[in-house]
């Protein structure tokens, strides 16, 4: 045989990773070490929420919406409430708007701290994982004190919020911000902004150029990391955010350059934790006294909504990007005729799938982790040789090992172990 023998290998990555919320599958076609095509398959967690919602009323859907996602549970029912308020023309009391800002920004802090740790783990810096997840406990405690739950805090109600912020909560939040300012953020910045190994590992991997980010409508830190200056809180002039002075954060303000790689996305997240803390402080200062619900009684609210007709759109900047809900009412019905939602990960997945073309397999975990859907959603990876049909199965551990080895090439002192975080996949050992 003469000439170069060419064959492509297909690597399915996914679909199940138990530690994170969205199972998905990336089918990666590789030529040697280079990725030449990425195909995304979704639907492993399809629960038919839109179908279920056809049989629920407006207030029941509020709790259904909250359970769509574990990390942005506030974002979902916040956006849904905004859509219903726009449809029915309900005016939200100003104090409720400020409480929504405070809880929303607390949620952004915990989501970003989680992702910072996950990316640290993906490149073998397990210390970062333990540091940021330990720090995250503090904000989770405050959310628990305010809402009664660590995850589904059910703060929103259509036309306001269900729980007020009291003096003790304000004190706890102020203490938390001081703790983050003094003890956590300097360390996080040291790692993600100035550490040479992290910079060498994350720079120029998983690059999403600005053109691709605009063309594929990437959202949130994924878009802002590529220099796309858009933020729904700013573009939509959402709620009281304009009074608090919100601005889209791009890596330019921190490092001076925008490359659109994993490093830039992490810089944006670090910057947004700072921004969130400032927004919370300003919101606490400016928050007026007053009522927190437009309609105090739920049955009166339901009666009012039953009479309403029209359609409304709610948009909000969730920690991962633009979240959008649409509600269409039908007169005389206590539930919406159509309720549709779109999560920011949906466009981001296709943007990163496009951006992974031309990268190396070892960059897959960190690139996928950097858009914050799932850390290397890879409880197992099967490598199928297209010619012989021979199948080798790599576990999440193996893929992490590959990633850590690449970090070790840059800095031999790294001693990260390819351990599975969380409860791990029960099937991982069997295979």
């Amino acid at each position, binding site marked *: 045989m003469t000439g170069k023998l060419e064959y492509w290998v297909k690597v399915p990555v996914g679909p199940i990773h138990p530690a994170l919320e969205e199972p998905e599958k990336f089918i990666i076609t590789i030529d040697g070490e280079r990725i030449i095509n990425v195909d995304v398959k979704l*639907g492993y967690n399809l629960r038919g929420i839109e179908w279920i919602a056809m049989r629920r009323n407006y207030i029941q859907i509020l709790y259904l919406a909250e359970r769509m996602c574990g990390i942005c549970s506030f974002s979902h029912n916040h956006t849904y409430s905004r859509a219903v308020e726009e449809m029915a023309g309900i005016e939200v009391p100003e104090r409720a708007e400020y409480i929504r800002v405070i809880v929303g920004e607390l949620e952004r802090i915990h989501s970003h701290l989680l992702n910072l740790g996950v990316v640290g783990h993906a490149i073998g810096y397990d210390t970062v994982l333990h540091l940021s997840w330990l720090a995250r406990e503090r904000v989770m405690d405050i959310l628990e004190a305010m809402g009664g739950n660590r995850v589904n805090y059910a703060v929103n109600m259509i036309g306001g919020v269900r729980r007020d912020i009291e003096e003790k909560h304000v004190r706890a939040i102020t203490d938390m911000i001081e703790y983050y300012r003094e003890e956590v953020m300097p360390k996080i910045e040291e790692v993600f902004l100035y550490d040479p190994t992290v910079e060498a590992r994350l720079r120029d991997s998983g690059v999403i150029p600005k053109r691709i980010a605009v063309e594929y409508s990437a959202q949130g830190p994924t878009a802002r990391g590529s220099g796309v200056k858009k933020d729904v809180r700013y573009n939509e002039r959402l709620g009281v955010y304009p009074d608090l002075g919100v601005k889209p954060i791009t890596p330019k303000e921190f490092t001076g350059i925008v490359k659109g790689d994993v490093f830039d996305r992490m810089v944006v997240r670090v910057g947004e934790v700072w921004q969130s803390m400032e927004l919370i402080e300003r919101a606490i200062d400016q928050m007026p006294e007053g009522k927190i619900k437009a309609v105090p009684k739920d049955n009166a609210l339901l009666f009012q909504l039953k009479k309403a007709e029209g*359609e409304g759109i709610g948009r909000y900047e969730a920690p991962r990007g633009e979240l959008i809900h649409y509600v269409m009412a039908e007169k005389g019905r206590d539930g919406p005729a159509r309720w549709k939602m779109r999560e920011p990960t949906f466009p981001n997945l296709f943007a990163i799938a496009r951006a992974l073309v031309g990268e190396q397999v070892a960059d897959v975990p960190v690139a996928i982790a950097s858009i914050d859907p799932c850390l290397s959603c890879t409880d197992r990876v099967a490598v199928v040789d297209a010619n012989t049909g021979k199948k080798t199965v790599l576990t999440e551990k193996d893929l992490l090992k590959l990633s850590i080895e690449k970090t070790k090439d840059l800095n031999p002192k790294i001693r990260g172990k390819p351990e599975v975080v969380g409860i791990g996949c029960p099937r991982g050992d069997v295979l």
Partner: protein
Amino acid sequence: MNVEEFVKAFGGRFPEAEVRVSENKQPHPKRRVWVEIDREKFHDAMKFIKELDPKAQFSIIIARDAGETLEAKYHMELFWEEGESLSLVIGTSVPKENPKLPTVTDVFPSALPYEREVQEFLGLFFDGIPDPRRLFLPDDFPEGVYPLRLDDTGIKPEMVKNAGHPYRIGGAKK
């Protein structure tokens, strides 16, 4: 370009389209533009929007079973570089006997996953879609069943009853 300028530009180009502006009651009221247009003019309208703002961001396709027809609404964010952006919802409808729309993936490449989603959930098909495979539903889901339809082609009660493997148990009788 603000809301008035957009309504004027769009209304001048497509006088038959139905354009209305809504406003919500937030502290800083947000105005949205809602457009209804025939499906023959729909693709041209999307092209025109892309010409107005080459960096328009495609957000979502909201499709709905409206009895005799199927409706599809597209939300887009325009002029986001100028601070306050323009929120545009452009809708069209097709009869159920001929549920076909032209694809907009040639104008907005990011529309592809949304079109695939609408195809499998509502049975509203797109002419010229580059990748018509299923996205969310499993590959062995029965053909001709569209979960969000409200008529006979929707989910039947017997499929829901055996919720573990609804389609397999229903299909085993054949």
